[in-house]
């Protein structure tokens, strides 16, 4: 039995003539321990899809089944890593995680809770920053806190909504490896939403493209069968990787192109005259600038 099932999901926003169907006919089954990546263009409804799995939104028709039971709202059995980290800025790293642990394991004693939190802070290599506030951390460190917070709840499923898209390429690479390393320790079921095909190939077992919206739906799946643990540099040279990457990209570009042909919307571009460089100078250079008091 799949741990997570999406059946005939349809979701729209707005009413009347301004009604927009975001998702249509979404069907997906995820097995326990599987790592699934959903790849799509921005604006195609990826976040709506993941919000329906974590319970923040509910589908208009169709249902989300978690271990056979329909999802009615959010809960700590699904750990979420948000796109913009969503750490509480007035709490330290430790307390941010503690808030989640308090909810997930209310029966634990304080010392056990503390050990549990420390374990996860260590797992994401932030022991030195446990008592820092989020504003004192870099973007990558903040996302690691968000990862630790989601994992510390010991969820059945880990949901990641473009977790690394706000980071630079180098940090993204290291964090991808770290997340995979942590994931492989207890093989949680994981769903990754991303707009980066490479990220999907490196991390996931399956890649499912989401066609561009409106009426976005899931495309044919692509199986990624590289051996784990994966070596990124080796994969990069693998001809199989290149073919897979091209297939997925081609598919995405193709559905994107057909979408654009379908739409009969015309864009009116503003009539702008280019300014010749060198002809116009903005501001004057002031020579011998003196100390100015006012």
């Amino acid at each position, binding site marked *: 039995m799949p741990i997570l099932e999406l059946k005939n999901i349809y979701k729209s926003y707005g009413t009347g003539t301004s009604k927009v169907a975001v998702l249509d006919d979404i069907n997906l089954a995820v097995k326990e321990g599987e790592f699934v990546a959903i790849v799509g263009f921005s604006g195609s409804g990826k976040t709506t899809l993941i919000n329906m799995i*974590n*319970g*923040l939104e509910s589908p208009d028709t169709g249902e989300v089944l978690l271990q056979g039971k329909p999802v009615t*709202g*959010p*809960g*700590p059995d*699904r750990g*979420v890593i*948000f796109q*913009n980290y*969503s750490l*509480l*800025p*007035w*709490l330290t790293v430790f307390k941010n995680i503690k*808030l*989640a642990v308090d*909810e*997930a394991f209310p029966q634990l004693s304080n010392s056990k809770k503390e050990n549990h939190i420390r374990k996860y802070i260590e797992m994401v290599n932030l022991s030195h920053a446990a008592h820092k*506030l*989020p*504003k*004192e951390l870099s973007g990558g460190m903040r996302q690691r806190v968000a990862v630790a917070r989601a994992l510390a*709840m010991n969820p059945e499923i880990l949901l990641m909504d473009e977790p690394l898209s706000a980071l630079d390429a180098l940090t993204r690479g290291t964090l991808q490896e770290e997340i995979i390393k942590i994931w492989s320790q207890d093989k949680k079921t994981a769903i990754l939403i991303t707009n980066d095909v490479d990220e999907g190939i490196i991390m996931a077992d399956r890649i499912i493209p989401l066609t561009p919206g409106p009426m976005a739906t899931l495309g044919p799946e692509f199986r990624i069968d590289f051996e784990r643990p994966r070596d990124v540099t080796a994969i990069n040279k693998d001809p199989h990787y290149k073919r897979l990457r091209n297939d997925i990209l081609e598919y995405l570009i193709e559905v994107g192109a057909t979408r654009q042909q379908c739409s009969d919307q015309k864009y009116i571009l503003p009539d702008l005259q280019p300014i010749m460089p060198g002809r116009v100078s903005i501001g004057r250079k002031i020579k011998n600038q003196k*100390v100015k*008091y006012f």
Partner: protein
Amino acid sequence: MKDKTIKSMRFMGLGFLEPLFKTISGEEPKKNLSIFIKKSLFPLASIFIFILFWHLGATALFNKEADARIEKARTEQGEEAAIAMAECIASGDISCQPNTLPSPKQVYQAYLALWKDHLQIAEKKDEFEEKVSKTNAERQKQGLAPITYTGRPSFLDQIGTSLKTVAAGFLLALFVAVPIGIIIGLSEVLRNSFNWLIQILKPVSPVVWLLLVFMIVKTVITDPNMDKSFIISFISVGLCAMWATLVNTSMGVANVDKDYMNVSKVLKLSIGKQIFKIILPASFPLIFTGLRITVSVAWMVLIAIELLAQSPGLGSFVWEEFQNGASDSNAKIIVAMFVIGIIGFLLDRIMLTVQNFMTFNKA
């Protein structure tokens, strides 16, 4: 050595002298001198210019009033009386001084007089306390109320009373406006239904609030031993000042960042935890901005309310001096004006410090 001196200067609040110190010790003298001039000398210069204009204006008004008096004496009593009046004014005799805007010098003298008066009254008070200490001890044994000093309060006592009233009014506003603001902020229905009421009551003048409070307090409190005027004035101050906090709190609570709310939903926090762990901390910046406005409004309306409520304090001091019409009354009013301004500024600074201490900064 140099760094240590700079550090201790900063600690003592003398940070503005830092550039001057650096100039003298030869560290980038040109740059530091210019910083010193910009940051310290110009503000000082502005104060001097203000005092200069004040002095000139006061002198002009004094001369105009003096001329008018001499002219009046001339038309009513003839040339001799006019000369006598001119001599009287020139001699500085109190009986014939023109009564107009006091000069900075007069205000300073009034300030010294008020200070001397305070010391005298404090001394009298101490003597009184000493005299009645024995009797009071006995009265306490018998379960009677101690005898208290009932003499005239000094200027400093009046400031103390005013501060007490403002503190009471502020606390009232805090304990009324923040909880109501949170409740209103949490529910859109409540927010919509109370909005018009708040919008109508917010611009009502302090004087009207005072009269309203007077109507109610007069009926509710019948015990003659209770300090009715104090109760009336602090409730009015609280009522006038609480609107900023109320509106800001409900705004802050209603507009908590959606990301934080998503976190609380995903964690399935209980309502209580949601309010105390997410919503309140997230709206602290706005709540404290509201409280800061409340303090300054409270201090501003206090004077008018004390003036009308016959409650002791700076407001009644100003009013009494105005009614009094002694030769230095006007100067004392100006002293009170500066005291009010400076205390208001200090209160705002204290609130700003508390605000910075209590609220988070988004990176």
